[in-house]
């Protein structure tokens, strides 16, 4: 839910997430920053109204960006909403992660999703990554000042006691001066928040905020709790905001197992996946560091053994891996299967073992193979423990000559000469169903596959319906492909009666299929007629609610 935005105030633009600096006589805002002042009329920057309890005239509340109102008093009537969305009870949220996460779920699960979200008091530098991930857009400098007043030196890995520092672990202008008074401490704290937000914005632009969050939460139990609770209790919300295609990432922490894109992979396998038609032998392989796996030395050898056995047409290769659980060969280009990196020690921890066992059990009980072959390495023991009636060909060393010969012999023995045959269409169908759900299968009806892996075209006669590219790892639709999906009413964005060119703005969207995720190929339709095909740039909820912004990037149109 972390997002980059532009806040336009009095003709000045501020890129969010950003910090608004309190601007008073005692604490003047840093020059050029977004300022925050209490209603006095005519000031630039953000204006906060006086509360309903302030003595004196109650002018200007309607013009203010932020309105404290009655500060949540249960005796007062509900307050009219201001320009920003806010968290109702800061103290409760900071003390109780459950309450904090519930507040986030409430705001982001409502129409407030579209309003800029303001974060008072919480925004210490080490929390900015997580708070941004939760969807906050603007922070205030109150915590930076209060920390300085209490002798606290802020860093991106947590607060330190200023007086205990024998040398200052920072080279910002304030720290470089060698003066350790409150003024310099405050200047450092502000600098730290500003530079952390630069890093946060960079991480968002690279699609790698989650990794920054996982590293920043380490220093503060409150942050770890928040992240875990978000993952556990608000998966649907996080998942909806997670693009289907992203940057390569490092899955280096316990929380990585619960990344929304990783959980989505596992859940989508269970919800949508069917093995390629005609496959009868399940062959489990270990993962490789190099992605896609097929390009690694170990997998090249595995595949040679399969090819020379003559059983390639009926063998379903599936990679057992953490944190994804399983990666069927035909999905190995699909994000995040070729985009994750994990620390490998050769030891699987219990969470990873349990997850692999559950996934393998799911696979063998739902997909029904004639034979299961375990050709595994470090994960061999836990996986074998849940398999019944299987052949173990790896002997614990899947890459050894002996094991590879063993594998080839077992395959040859079971397959005989039934194993040849072209699998590319069946594999493509499995991928299309994984990407688009059951409607995706229609793309492959009466189709042939042309081209050379990993760049493959889905052709029906002379008509191209879509294309898988190694770079995207998923199928891009042509207008004809979009028509196939539209006829099944899947992945459609319904628009008013016009012909979109270049891009489709949210204002034109009437309705969007709830399955659509950012990065998905979609059909843009009007009353059943496909007007364009393109890539989703928003969540379906945003497409329907928002009145501005690009909803779909159009690739083909009428």
């Amino acid at each position: 839910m972390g997002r980059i935005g532009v806040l336009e105030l009095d003709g000045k633009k501020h890129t969010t997430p950003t910090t608004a600096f309190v601007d008073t006589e005692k604490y003047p805002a840093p020059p050029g920053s977004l300022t925050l002042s209490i209603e006095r009329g005519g000031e630039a920057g953000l204006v906060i109204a006086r509360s309903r309890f302030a003595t004196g005239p109650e002018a200007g509340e309607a013009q203010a960006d932020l309105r404290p109102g009655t500060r949540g008093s249960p005796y007062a009537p509900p307050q009219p909403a201001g320009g920003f969305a806010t968290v109702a009870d800061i103290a409760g949220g900071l003390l109780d992660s459950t309450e904090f996460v519930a507040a986030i779920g409430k705001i982001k699960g409502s129409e407030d999703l579209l309003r800029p979200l303001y974060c008072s008091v919480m925004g210490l530098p080490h929390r900015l990554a997580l708070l941004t991930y939760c969807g906050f857009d603007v922070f205030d400098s109150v915590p930076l000042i209060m920390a300085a007043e209490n002798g606290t030196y802020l860093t991106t890995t947590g607060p330190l006691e200023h007086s205990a520092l024998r040398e200052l672990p920072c080279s910002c202008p304030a720290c470089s001066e060698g003066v350790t008074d409150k003024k310099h401490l405050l200047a450092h704290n502000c600098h730290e928040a500003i530079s952390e937000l630069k890093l946060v914005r960079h991480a968002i632009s690279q699609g790698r905020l989650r990794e920054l969050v996982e590293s920043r939460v380490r220093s503060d139990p409150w942050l770890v709790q928040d992240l875990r609770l978000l993952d556990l209790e608000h998966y649907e919300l996080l998942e909806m905001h997670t693009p289907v295609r992203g940057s390569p990432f490092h899955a280096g922490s316990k929380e990585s197992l619960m990344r929304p894109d990783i959980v989505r992979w596992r859940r989508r396998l269970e919800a949508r996946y069917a093995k390629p038609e005609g496959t009868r032998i399940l062959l489990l392989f270990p993962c490789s560091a190099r992605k896609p796996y097929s390009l690694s030395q170990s997998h090249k050898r595995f595949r040679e053994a399969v090819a020379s056995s003559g059983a390639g047409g009926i063998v379903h290769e599936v990679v057992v891996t953490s944190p994804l659980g399983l990666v069927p060969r035909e999905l190995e280009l699909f994000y995040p299967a070729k985009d994750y990196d994990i620390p490998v020690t050769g030891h699987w921890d219990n969470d990873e073992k349990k997850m692999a066992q559950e996934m393998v059990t799911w696979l063998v009980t739902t997909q029904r193979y004639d034979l299961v072959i375990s050709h595994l390495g470090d994960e061999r023991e836990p996986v074998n423990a849940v398999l019944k009636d299987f052949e173990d060909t790896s002997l614990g060393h899947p890459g050894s000559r002996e094991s590879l010969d063993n594998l080839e012999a077992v395959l040859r023995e079971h397959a005989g000469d039934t194993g040849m045959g072209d699998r590319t269409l069946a594999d493509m169908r499995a991928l299309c169903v994984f990407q688009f759900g059951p409607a995706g299968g229609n793309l492959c009806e009466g189709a042939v596959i042309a081209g050379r892996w990993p760049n493959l075209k889905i052709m029906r006669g002379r008509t191209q319906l879509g294309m898988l590219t190694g770079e995207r790892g998923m199928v891009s639709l042509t207008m004809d492909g979009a028509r196939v999906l539209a006829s099944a009413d899947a992945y459609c964005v319904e628009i008013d009666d016009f012909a979109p060119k270049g891009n489709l703005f949210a204002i034109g969207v009437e309705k969007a299929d709830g399955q659509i995720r950012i990065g998905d190929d979609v059909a843009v339709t009007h009353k059943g007629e496909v007007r364009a095909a393109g890539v989703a740039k928003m969540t379906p909820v945003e497409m329907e609610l928002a009145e501005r912004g690009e909803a779909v990037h159009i690739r083909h149109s009428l």
Partner: protein
Amino acid sequence: MDWRRDLTSPASVWREKELLQGKVVDVGVAILQTSGCRHYHEGGCSMCGYNVDGAGDVKPEQLEKQVEHALGQFKDVPFIKIYTSGSFLDECEVPSGPRDKLLSACADRGTRLLFETRPEFVTDQTLDHVRAIHSDIEIALGLESANDNVLSWSINKGFAVKDYDEAARKLKDKGIDVRTYVLLKPPFLTEREAVEDAERTIAHASKASSCISLNPVNVQKGTLVERLWRTWAYRPPWLWSVLEVLRSTKGIDSKIVCDPSGGGKERGAHNCGKCDGVVLDSVKAFSLSQDHSRLGAPDCECRGIWESVMELEGFVMGGTPDLQRFFRRQRA
């Protein structure tokens, strides 16, 4: 209510000093166990936990015994204060029997008597009746704030400023001294708003009051304020704020008194723990002398924090989190 509770003696009895006509005198104070404040039964005030003293089924004879008990303790004092945790003039709370007994005993002894009431029980009829028995009386009204928004949305006081004004005028017309309670820092106000509200309320109350009592909120059991305080969403006022308000009363004719309940403790008005005692002593000295030069304390490190809080709290969106508590290292 607890059946073992003895309803024949007051909940509490003590002596304190107060400035009376230029002299510091001994004052006898008793808190009676009554059926409790009428307003408590209608929701009550956000900061008031005194209703725990309320004894639902106290009988008039028992209240009379309590009055006798108190009178027996205070034979030698020129001034008696009777608190009921509610309204002394509400006949449902204090029936005429014990009430008139107390009034006539004080009249016989020539003892000044102070009691409290909500303004709705200040009627011409009651006042005439009371005055006919005893004339040296002072009646305390809890105005708390002269801002109707604060009265209804922060305190849930159940009456408006004009109701107080009317009651105070009636009392003044009958020549009865008015003491007005002013609350410092009811919930949902920032420290600065609280100070400004108290200053403005004192100015308003001074028009009709011979004495004004500044009451910094303390966190009482079972109240909304306690619930907020437990989740760090409320902090009792700083003693620096108490000083600030008292200093601003220079030039006000009414006597100003302040005796912060729970002063210096986490649940009462407090500073950092180091300077609390000195500030509280100065507040006491001021109350007994009305000498503003007695107010003050040597500068303490925590004053800077209080100043930041005064400056910054108005910028906070999302309640009134205790900024000091979230950012300080824990109090020793």
